[in-house]
């Protein structure tokens, strides 16, 4: 059951590329925020971009991509409960009532 852990076989360049993508995504986020035309779809866009950035960091900077699946499991469970409770609470407080 022991899996490979420790340093991933990726170069510094790879990390720089990821960082660049992150920077670009952040730039896009801020841009769409200012574009009036997108106001309607702002929410979905921003949430998607946020999720992508999140995923990039945990997968590559935090090595989940190369590390034991167990670690991914731990994070996913934590996130799952956390997000569910957040949504449930907001629902109870009528945040989705429109």
């Amino acid at each position, binding site marked *: *059951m*022991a*899996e*490979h*852990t420790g*340093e991933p076989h990726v170069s*510094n360049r790879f*990390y*720089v590329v*990821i*960082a660049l993508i*992150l*920077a670009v995504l*952040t730039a896009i*986020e*801020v841009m769409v*925020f200012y574009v009036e035309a997108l106001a309607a779809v*702002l*929410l979905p866009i*921003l*949430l998607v*971009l*946020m999720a992508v*950035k*999140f995923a990039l*960091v*945990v997968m590559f*900077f*935090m090595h989940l991509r190369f*590390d*034991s699946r*167990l*670690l991914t499991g*731990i*994070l996913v*469970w*934590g*996130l799952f*409960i*956390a*997000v569910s*409770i*957040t949504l449930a*609470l*907001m629902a109870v*407080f009528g*945040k989705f009532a429109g």
Partner: protein
Amino acid sequence: MHGPTSTGIPTRKLGMWTFIGSECMLFATLISTFLIYRGRNVVGPYPEELLNIPFITVTTFVLLMSSLMMVLALAAVQRGQRRASLLWLFMTALFGLIFLTGQYIEFSHFVHEGLGLSRNLFSSTFFVLTGTHGAHVAGGVIWLGTLWILALRGRLSPERAETVEIAGLYWHFVDVVWIVLFTIIYLLR
């Protein structure tokens, strides 16, 4: 004390990950509160009057880049490149400090505009939420500082890279939290 572990994952690393799993709940609670109370203020100043997107975008960028510094630092330590390790560890901590300074400027601006901690629901939730995150960053900076000193003393040999990796996990998580906060607090209205 115990040789190969049942999962193959180093014990301290696994510990950090479980801790991170728990931290998710911590920030989720803060974020829930922030979202539930959004728009329920009875007195101003209101967020849209004060939030300075361009400014925060910069600090956000800085924090993102500190994550890059962090991975480079880890890689350097793993490869046993002492000078590189020193440099990147220092940069990570430095960027962290810059972020904190930015936060300090933002906070004092708000207070100056009459938005004290107990002014309205926005200020209460905002300060406690971002403050908790800031505290995490500060803790990370101190941690990185000690690692830097270790490196300086030449005590960060590749065998002890795990220590840096764990600090890195923590640092990246704090960064990830900010990615979420940035969107939720500043961009979503």
